[in-house]
């Protein structure tokens, strides 16, 4: 199996789907001639032409709205929003239009739109370039949201997103761009939207994470293993639909749960996981559920501040250990 980097998995998934389906097009800032600010679209305009792979003016609301118009009229547009922090300038076309068109039209209209965006902290990009919006977007009926944490997942989920008949937001993580993984070189391999994945089995405590949180949870699980505690790490992979069943099933075996997240805890995805697990697995829980999440602040710029902001594996391990031992 060839080794693939996370950013290259984006390119490969896009290339394969643009090749496979002539109704797909790709729009975004710098994704055409320059090949993307993360090299995530390199070569695509050369192969598919400037009619299908388009550099657009820097007005996200306009080109995202145009993509909705394309999706309503026979195309399958893929739009890149280069930083997730720019969702607030184009949110209306996502939540009031793309998400609601099928419903508002009584099922007449479909919006087979894919939005790819890059978020997450850890790169000292500061308060306006480190955001992610999975909780906002995941709570909007009509949208699907996935958060791939590995190159293989990027490829499989992005391809499924493009083939899906509803708007799907693919939230990628800037901190994972150089991550490598062996990925089957099979253009037909897709991953279903809405399935969590157990990244590491364990019996003492469940760690739930997604996107950039997964590597933190895995690293905490290593620390815990050294102390004799076997943590099961569940990667949600998909935020909407959310695979609660896999988490509940794990908690029914481990009886303890820690949610690990790189984004604000308040009303976040972790809160939803806790609420559902509490309801569905109440009698299996041996301890309160903890969330390890950033403090309630914007993402700061300076390295020591940002390190403090993001949950460290040691914090996660400490929290899990306390649950297991008390």
């Amino acid at each position, binding site marked *: 199996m060839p080794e693939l980097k996370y950013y290259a998995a984006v390119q490969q998934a896009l290339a394969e789907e643009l090749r496979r389906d002539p109704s797909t097009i790709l729009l975004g800032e710098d994704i055409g001639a320059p090949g993307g600010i993360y090299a995530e679209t390199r070569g695509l305009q050369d192969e598919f032409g400037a009619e299908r792979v388009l550099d*657009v003016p820097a007005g996200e609301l*306009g080109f995202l*709205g145009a993509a909705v118009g394309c999706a309503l009229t026979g*195309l399958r547009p893929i739009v890149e929003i280069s930083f997730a922090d720019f969702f607030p300038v184009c949110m209306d076309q996502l939540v009031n239009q793309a998400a609601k068109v099928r419903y508002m*039209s*009584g099922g*007449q*209209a479909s919006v087979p739109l894919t939005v790819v965006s890059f978020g997450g902290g850890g790169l000292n990009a500061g308060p306006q370039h480190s955001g992610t919006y999975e909780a906002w977007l995941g709570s909007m009926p009509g949208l699907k949201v996935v958060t791939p944490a590995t190159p293989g997942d990027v490829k499989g989920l992005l391809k499924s997103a493009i083939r899906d008949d509803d708007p799907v937001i693919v939230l990628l993580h800037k901190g994972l761009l150089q991550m490598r993984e062996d990925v089957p070189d099979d253009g037909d391999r897709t991953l279903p939207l809405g399935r969590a994945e157990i990244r590491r089995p364990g019996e003492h405590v469940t760690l739930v994470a997604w996107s950039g949180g997964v590597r933190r949870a895995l690293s905490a699980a290593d620390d815990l293993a050294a102390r004799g505690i076997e943590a099961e790490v569940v990667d949600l992979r998909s935020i909407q*639909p959310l695979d609660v069943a896999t988490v509940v099933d794990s908690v029914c075996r481990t009886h303890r749960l820690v949610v690990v997240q790189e984004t604000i805890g308040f009303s976040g995805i972790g809160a939803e996981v806790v609420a559902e697990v509490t309801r569905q697995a109440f009698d299996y829980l041996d301890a309160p559920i903890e969330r390890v999440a950033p403090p309630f602040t914007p993402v700061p710029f300076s390295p020591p501040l940002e390190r403090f902001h993001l949950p460290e594996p040691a914090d996660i391990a400490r929290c899990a250990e306390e649950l297991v031992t008390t």
Partner: protein
Amino acid sequence: MSAGSSSATALDGARLDLALALHEQMVRIRRFEERVAELFAAGELPGFVHLSIGQESVAVGVIDLLRESDYITATHRGHGHIIAKGARFHPMIAELMGRATGYCRGKGGSMHIFDVGLGVLGANGILGAGQPIAVGAAFSARLQGRDDVAVTFFGEGASAQGAVHEAMNLAAVWRAPVVFVAEVNGFAELTPYDVHVPIPSLAARGAAYGIPATVVDGLDVLAVRDAAEGCIARAREGGGPSLLEVRTLRWHGHYEGDPQRYRDPAELARRADVDPIAHLVLALREAGVPDDRIASAAERADADLDVAVATARADPLPAPEDALDHVYATPIEPRR
């Protein structure tokens, strides 16, 4: 025909047929809107409705030139646009009544009527949202090798939205086959034009994107159509976007029930002078069309409306659980 009208040529032959067809369409819209006003006043319509009475020439003059495969995006005040594009009365009325047989099965209401088959890509409850969507539809048609065009309507209020700027800019960069129709009716909700627009005419915005812009008086539907003809032909022939400003007047309140305390009674009295239907009727009479023939348009519209209303009244409301459908192509479980 009134002096100074740009279409002050003799109404005969094909031009007369055209005038009759435009008259028929305008009357259909007028009667529809008047019926909606009655139904609303009678408490038969939930929610709220925005009517386009007095503005019929805008929808009709422009959309008369479109094919079924062309696209439009309409506004919150969009019944006229949608009727002009060929929408049927029954599913419209049924939607306004919240019936299961409505265009949107009762899920959308007045501000969300779609008829995808007719290229109606939605009325819209968000100012400025229709413009980028129309640019995309126009671009999409061209990319798929069709010479269909898109027409998008917006008012002076919406012109203040950033989305309209982004759409015009993108359309110009793409040379997309789209026509921006600024339907200037004097108001945005409860405040006049000047609160929203710092220039006498929105047509000055064409130059901001390097696209041609025209202003036309909505009093004369033939003039509107003539002005639109160039815009639409240009788009269809690959000449790119253009901007057409039509000056008209909102006759009713912003929404039905609006007491309009903010409105000068003198200006309200001006309505009769700017009635595009009365204006066209004068011309038809001058061209020798008999009164009963002119009056028959309203009769046909009313007959259609009677059927539509009676049918919709007898139609079932949606079952409560229908609320769960049409969120995704394939339902996500659990839906509650």
